[in-house]
């Protein structure tokens, strides 16, 4: 009897903490998004769905832009991450952990500080553009800061290790004999890659997408530091609705909408690329 209760005692404090400060706040945010009122006079539950309709209508541009930026970031990251994960997994030899530590170096510096550092490098009078402009290689009115590529570049930069690591883990698990077998069966290098290595790496790509698409499309630091009014993302809107306007119902409705869209996206993607299908592709 006592042994059967043991796991519940172990879970109790942590579980209670998460129930109180993760699950319950989500529920309160949901109900707040359907209330009307303000900070001073309080909020009444009126099931005011109109908040969602208005929020989505007013900020459709920012929502769509965030998803597009998140999508581009993720695709660019897969392309950038694959070769480096491949190199470390198959050619890293005994230096694998050194390479991994080098890739994790940025995490020892604050996320905000790193992003500001990029602003510093890329700004109009900064380390990169000033010399190029004075040498006449770029027109004087050339900008990077404030453009969409600057924001996407920042997102790619900040979340790239989260894409490299899961792909690396998946590639590292591949039995080298499988690759050898493919070669022995006269597969060309391209076929070895497309028919054997890439399908086996798909679970890693999936984990990487999960770990980068969600934070990238809900980010507001990169677009605030590296962007301009033309690159505003939904995260910035939600942040200012909460912290500046204190318009809690709208802000709650927008963050719920964002989460719903991200969840639907992730589930659709998981179904399209589900584990069974991955196995089927591998077996083909």
């Amino acid at each position, binding site marked *: 009897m006592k042994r*059967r209760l*043991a*796991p*519940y005692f*172990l*879970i109790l*404090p*942590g*579980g209670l*903490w*998460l129930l109180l*400060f*993760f*699950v319950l*706040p*989500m529920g*309160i*945010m949901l109900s*707040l998004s359907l209330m009307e009122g303000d900070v001073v006079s309080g909020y009444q539950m009126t099931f005011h769905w109109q908040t969602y309709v208005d929020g989505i209508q007013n900020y459709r541009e920012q929502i769509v832009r965030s998803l597009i930026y998140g999508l581009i970031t993720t695709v660019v990251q897969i392309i*950038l991450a694959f070769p*480096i994960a491949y*190199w470390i997994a198959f*050619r890293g030899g005994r230096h694998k*952990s050194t390479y991994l*530590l*080098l*890739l994790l170096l*940025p*995490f*020892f*510096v*604050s*996320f*905000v*500080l790193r992003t*500001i550092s990029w602003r*510093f*490098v890329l700004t109009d009078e*900064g380390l990169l553009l000033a010399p190029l402009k004075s040498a006449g290689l770029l027109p004087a009115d050339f900008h990077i800061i404030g453009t969409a590529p600057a924001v996407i570049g920042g997102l790619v*930069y900040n979340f*790239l290790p989260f894409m490299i690591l899961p792909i690396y883990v998946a590639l590292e698990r591949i039995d080298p004999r499988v690759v050898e077998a493919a*070669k022995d069966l006269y597969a060309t*290098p391209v076929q070895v890659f497309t028919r054997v290595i890439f399908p086996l790496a798909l679970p890693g790509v999936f984990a990487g997408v*999960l770990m980068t698409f*969600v*934070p990238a499309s809900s*980010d*507001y*630091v990169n677009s605030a*530091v590296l962007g301009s009014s033309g690159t505003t993302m939904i995260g910035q809107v*939600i*942040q200012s609705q*909460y912290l500046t306007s204190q318009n*809690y119902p709208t*802000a*709650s409705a927008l*963050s719920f909408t*964002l*989460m719903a869209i*991200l969840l639907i996206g992730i589930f659709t993607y998981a179904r399209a690329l589900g584990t069974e299908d991955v196995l089927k592709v591998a077996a083909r």
Partner: protein
Amino acid sequence: MAPAPAPVRRRSRGRTGDRLLFVYTWLIIAWLALPIFIMIMFGFNDTKGRYNQTWQGFTFKWYGRLLEIPALTEAVRNSLLIAVGTTVVAGALGTLVGLALGRYRFRGHGTTNFVMFAVIASPELVMGASLLSFFVYIGAGLGKTTILISHVMFSISFVAVVVRARVLTLDRYIEEAARDLGAGPWTTFRLVTWPMIFPAVLAGGLLAFVLSIDDFVITNFTAGTTTTFPLWIWGATRVGLPPQVNVMGTLIFAVGILIALASALSSRRRPS
């Protein structure tokens, strides 16, 4: 150990490809490290004006004048306090959850796993927003306590996942042997289980510390008027960052690297 025989290269093209990949890998590493390099370098910049943006000569003086900005010092102190608190609380609670998930099968096992995953996968923005909604709704004042509560919340899952992974690899017969030899449950835990899971508890705690000290998004929502190191940097961006920020960042970076190297070395020495 004898070196494994080198695989026979079939084509020279493979070699060129390898060389390209090698160069590419180092280019990416350099790109990832560039902002760190700039941060460290401009901590040594003998800047005269308020903007620390152009190189004006080498100096050590900012290291001596590190604590001259009271608000910054206060923010760093808050960050350290909260990170230590998070490490202790989330370390303890997360370890218990990890033990339960790794060791027992019970009703609610799947649900607990799902909640752990949900916390890790949820956008920080949404967690921060929901916590702020919650604190506003119950009328709690924002400050160090609410920051600590939120940091513990998102760190528990990471600690639990790390500890669970370790518990799953443990040989249960070692504990049964201890019990057969007359050790009670508590003695078994203290003398057998705890030493075996300790590396994972340490790793989970370090992870909690790093996540807490660097967190910006959730803290931004739950801090009120309290500042932490990342929040102070964020607020100071518009007026220009003083070199002290670079020095603080450099010191935190150096300590982090030292701890990472020390734990990597100690785990290498331990036979696994």
